[in-house]
Structures are given as C-alpha cells and as structure tokens.
C-alpha cells in the first residue's frame, strides 16, 4: 500500500479518536463506582461496570422528571414549529398575496438579529402574560421562526406549479391541495425541520435558564448545570447525567442523519 494512503488514514483515525474520546470517556466513567475515575493511576475502563450512578440520579436527583420535561417540551416545540412554519413556508413559495416579496425580504434581513436582543423584552412580555415559569414561556420562541419558514420555502419551490393548477381545475380548495398534495411532497423537509426543532429545544440552555425558576420544571441541560454546581466532586454521577442528556439526541441524529445534513446545507446557503 502507498505510504500516503497510510498517512492520511492514520491521521483520520487519530482525529476520529480524539473527537470521540470525551464522549467515550463520559460513557465509561458513568459506569464506574464513585471515586473510581479520580483514583491513580487513571484507568480507562471501569473495573466492575455498575449502573449505580444512574440509579442515584433517578432516585435521589429526580432526573426522571427532567428527562420527562425535556421530552415533552421538545415534542411540543416540534409539533408547534411544524404547524406554523410549514404552512407559511409553502405560502411564501407557491401562493400569491400582496406584499409577499417585501415581507420575505424583511424577514431574511432580520436573520442577522441575534435572538438575545429580543430576550429581555420577551421575558417582560411573558411575565405580564403570566407565562414566566411555565412551559408556555419555553415554547414561545420555538413556535415559529424565520429560519424554519425559509427552510420550508426553499424546498417547496421545487413543487411544480402545474400539479397545483391541475388540482385547482378539479375544484380542490387551497386547504385540500395543501393537505392532500403538498404535505406528502414536503415530508423530507418536515422531517428535517422536525429534527432541527427537537434538537434545538432539547439542547437549548440560556432561554429555559431564564424563564424557568421552579426546579420541577427544569429541562435536562438546566438541571444538569445546577446539579453540577452541587455535585462538583461526583464525577461519575455527573457523567451519567451527561449520558442521559446527550444520548437521546445522538441516537435521533444517527437515525435521521441524511435529513439533518440536507437541512444544514439548505440552511447555510442563505443570503
């Protein structure tokens, strides 16, 4: 074999191992007994693997509740974001209405505004609406988004107009066309937008940290950040918490990679 191929593959192997090391180490030390991961000399694998840390998290740290909160919120955000963005994205691509181009341009321009600019007044708005410290406050920013609308629009542009015209000729209403013809054709981008929203909500930290004060309402990342302040020394326990936070989204990504990457490429060609 050529030395160059050997060099390149060796390089890739090293880079791959370095990238995965923190995640593998997290998994391995989450199965160690308390204190084992800080004993000298350091060992890479647990002597006798145990689920002790996971049991501790569920029985004493109440992580089951946080897991449930994260699942519920991420699912709800996904459904809401699909409801709002898909119909709007389709309309921007295929339906005529006054001011369509102008509104779309304004929205694209607004993509440069970082969401943190809106954060403080949004907090006040939700406070006056009585939504702070409820799930509603977490869901509001995920409901509809410019990026989601843009993503759906780019994909919906590929639907042939003739198809929609034919259905109109046959007397179908706009809503029937949307439900029977458009939605099935948009399925791949629905999956893409769904994963984006689910992952985004699951991993979001700053906003739930701001709007949730009751511990019972915490999402996994917020709970993990607060747990890690209390349990600075309990590494094995914290690693188990990290596994529970990381694993669900990692599995979701592994299963639906194709859709995720497609969306990433559409999304990055804005402007």
């Amino acid at each position: 074999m050529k030395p160059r191929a050997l060099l390149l593959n060796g390089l890739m192997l090293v880079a791959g191992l370095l990238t995965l090391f923190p995640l593998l180490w997290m998994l391995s030390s989450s199965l160690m007994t308390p204190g084992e991961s800080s004993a000298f000399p350091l060992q890479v694998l647990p002597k006798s693997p145990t689920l002790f840390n996971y049991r501790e998290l569920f029985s004493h740290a109440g992580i089951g509740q946080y897991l449930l909160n994260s699942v519920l919120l991420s699912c709800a955000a996904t459904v809401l974001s699909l409801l709002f963005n898909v119909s709007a994205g389709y309309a921007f691509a295929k339906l005529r209405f006054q001011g369509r181009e102008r509104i779309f341009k304004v929205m694209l321009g607004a993509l440069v505004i970082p969401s943190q600019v809106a954060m403080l007044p949004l907090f006040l708005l939700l406070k006056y609406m009585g939504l702070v410290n409820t799930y509603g406050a977490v869901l509001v920013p995920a409901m509809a988004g410019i990026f989601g609308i843009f993503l759906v629009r780019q994909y919906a542009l590929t639907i042939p107009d003739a198809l929609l015209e034919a259905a109109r000729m046959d007397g179908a209403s706009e809503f029937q066309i949307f439900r029977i013809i458009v939605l099935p054709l948009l399925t791949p981008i629905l999956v893409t937008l769904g994963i984006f929203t689910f992952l985004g909500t699951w991993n979001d930290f700053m906003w739930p940290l701001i709007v949730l004060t009751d511990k019972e309402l915490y999402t996994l990342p917020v709970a993990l950040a607060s747990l890690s302040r209390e349990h600075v020394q309990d590494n094995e326990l914290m690693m188990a918490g990290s596994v529970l936070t990381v694993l669900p989204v990692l599995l979701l990504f592994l299963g639906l990679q194709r859709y995720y990457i497609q969306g990433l490429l559409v999304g990055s060609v804005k402007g």
Partner: protein
Amino acid sequence: MNSQRAAWCFVAPALLVISVFFFLPVLAALIMSLTDFDIYALADLRNLRFVGLRNYIQLLQTPLFWQALGNTLYFVVVGVPLSIAASLGAALLLHSRLTWFKGLFRTAFFAPVVTSLVAVAVIWRYLLHTRYGMINYGLQELGIPAIDWLNDPQWAMPAIILFAVWKNFGYNMIIFLAGLQSIPEDLYEAAGLDGAGTWQQFRFVTWPMLGPTLLMVSILSMTGYFQLFAEPYVMTQGGPVQSTVSVLYFMYEQGFKWWNLGAASAVAFVLFAIMFGVTLLQLRFAKGGEV
C-alpha cells in the same frame, strides 16, 4: 381575491407569532435601552424614566464591560480561525480519494455538534481538571507539567476555545465538504497535466474555488462565537478573575441577576452592532479580494 384570502390564512399565524414574539421585542429592546428600566420599574412601570444614551455612556465607563468585550474578542479572534482550520482539515481528509470508512468518520466528526452544550461542558470541565483530569494526565505522561486549566486566568480562555473548537468543527466541515464536492474534477486534471503537485493544486484550485464557502463559513462561525455564554456559565462562572466573562454573560448578569434591564438591553445592542459591523467588513473585504 379568494386565493388571496387563502394565502393569508397560511402565512398569518406564523407572521403574527414572529411579529409579537420577535419583532416587537427587538423594537422594545431598542426603546428599553434608552430607559433606566430596573427592579423598581419591574415592580411598577411608573418608576420608568427615559434617560437617552446614558446606559450606553455608562457602559463605556464600566471596566467589566470592556473586559467582557476583550474576552469575547479573544474567543472570536483565536477560536474562529482554529475552528475553520479544523473543519477544513477534516473535510479535506474526508474528501480525499485515499481515505476509507468516510461515512463512519463523518458521523464521528459530526457527533459533538448535536450534543447538548451543557452536558459536554460538564465532561470537559472534568477532562480539564487539574489533578485527575485526563488531559493533564496525558500531558504529564509526555513530561509536561500539569496546567491548572480552568483556575488560571491565563489558561481558562484557551481551555474554553479548545472545547468550543472540538464542539463546533463538524458543522463547518459538512459545509466545506459540500463545497469541495462541487469543484469540477477537470480543474484538478488540468492542473495535474500542468505539473501541479498536491500543495499547488490546493493553493491554486481548491482554495480559490472554496472562496464563497469560506466567506459564508467565517460569517456564520463568527456570529456564533460572539454569542459565547453557556461555556463560561457551566465551566468557570466567568472566572477566574473574570477572565471568561463574555459580553452575553455580562448581559445575563446585568439583566437577570441584577435586573438592570435597560442597561442589559444596551449591552445586547452593542453586541449586535459589533457583529453587524464585522460581518459588513468581511463582506467588503471579500468583494475587494475578488476585484
């Protein structure tokens, strides 16, 4: 006429949500940054006063704000090029005809991107631990003395940069990979016929052809890196001696810890203005380069 109404039924819900929960707050933030909105105004809006540019002027006289700005710029100026170099390197490896198991490695390189930042920050805080962290353990095996990564003001930001590059490089790698795949093969063949070696092919074909991708990736990364928050929040709480307080961390503390919402809004706008300005500079620079 009827189809107009149907179209509005499709867009109105989303537009309403975005207007009420995004455009309105952005406008309100601009107004709020010109008021002394604090905990007293939070209790009773009658305590609110218009103060013009006072928040901005005070901000410029606050040493911690300058420190936060400096820390954030450090993070951007060192972090973005490192992150782009790692992404491009990984993309070139994955694109090479000589490498095996591309799908597998692509997934491996991308895995950190989908992980929750807090969870992996917890892992890294542990990997970086002075006494029993794996990184120092590895360094000591190589004969390098242990570094007190997160407790030494000199090393805290580099440690966070290292972590951020690891977390993010997979994202840009995918975009670079798509860019590399769109470069026509005959350009390389022509260069090969002209006697260009690997390095020259990279320098005179790949690099210029990647120009637009590179511009986009650097704008996206830069805006992302300016929004540094969760890493210092989880790993260092802004310390040691405020060496990892970022602009957004400063805004969070002003707003949600001290309830100085007017001043915090001013911070948000200053950050936005800086990001906007740097993006414009990059675009101008890229245009100048083309002409």
